[in-house]
């Protein structure tokens, strides 16, 4: 496989994640879509790291940072979901619209 193939694969995964984020009504479904998109981004970083970087530690460090940020993001997101469920009994994104301008 070449660099272009990996980039195409990452692009397809990112599009699937975008579709998931936009089409889901459940907040947990939105979170799953975000994870897919982050995963596609890290696949791109690893592909560039393999094929067009002189120092191969760069891309691996970036991917490790992405994984760490994803863990932090999931912790915050899940606590928000729990709090919403406790106060509202609903995690449907179309029912949570008090903040609309």
């Amino acid at each position: 496989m070449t660099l272009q193939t990996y980039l195409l694969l990452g692009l397809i995964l990112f599009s699937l994640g975008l579709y998931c984020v936009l089409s889901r009504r459940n907040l947990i479904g939105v979170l799953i879509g975000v994870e897919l998109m982050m995963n596609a981004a890290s696949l791109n970083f690893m592909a560039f790291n393999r094929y067009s970087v002189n120092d191969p530690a760069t891309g691996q460090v970036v991917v490790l940072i992405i994984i760490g940020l994803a863990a932090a993001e999931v912790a915050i997101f899940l606590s928000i979901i729990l709090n919403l469920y406790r106060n509202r009994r609903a995690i449907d994104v179309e029912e949570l619209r008090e903040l609309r301008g």
Partner: protein
Amino acid sequence: MTEQLALYLFVVLALAGGVMAAGMRHILNAIIGLAISLLGVAGLFLHLGSPFVAGMQILIYIGGIVVAIVFAMMLSLAMTMRPPPANRLKVWFAGLCATLFLVSVSLVLSTAQFHVVETPPAAPSWAIEHIGHALLTHYNLVFEALSVVLLLAIIGAILIARQEKPTT
């Protein structure tokens, strides 16, 4: 030969898991799809020459994040709730946006020229020691910032999810 077969297997796993995560109506099936997709991408990392990052992907993503999502699903009873009927307009619009993005970026990708250098995966700069060294010298600031971010995220998650005591 076996390597090629494994590579195609990983590609199929990543794509099929992604389709499953995006398409399945029930949220548990979507989570399983996410785990399958992450496993496939970890295999691709292995093929791209970095067994360390592949291991971290499996350990943190599949062993930590997916399990945390399953816990949140159980605690918020999304498992027993009937999935609400999909909003037709929203699904169509989402599909349109994703397809538009896919087509436009693949057009860019088909004309782009990349500077390609072949770093053989067996070179000593691919060793784990090299990553650790880079993490503690050249990328030291990022490393420290990430640890602060993780600490703040833990404290914030505890603060947000804490049960409020009724003040009498």
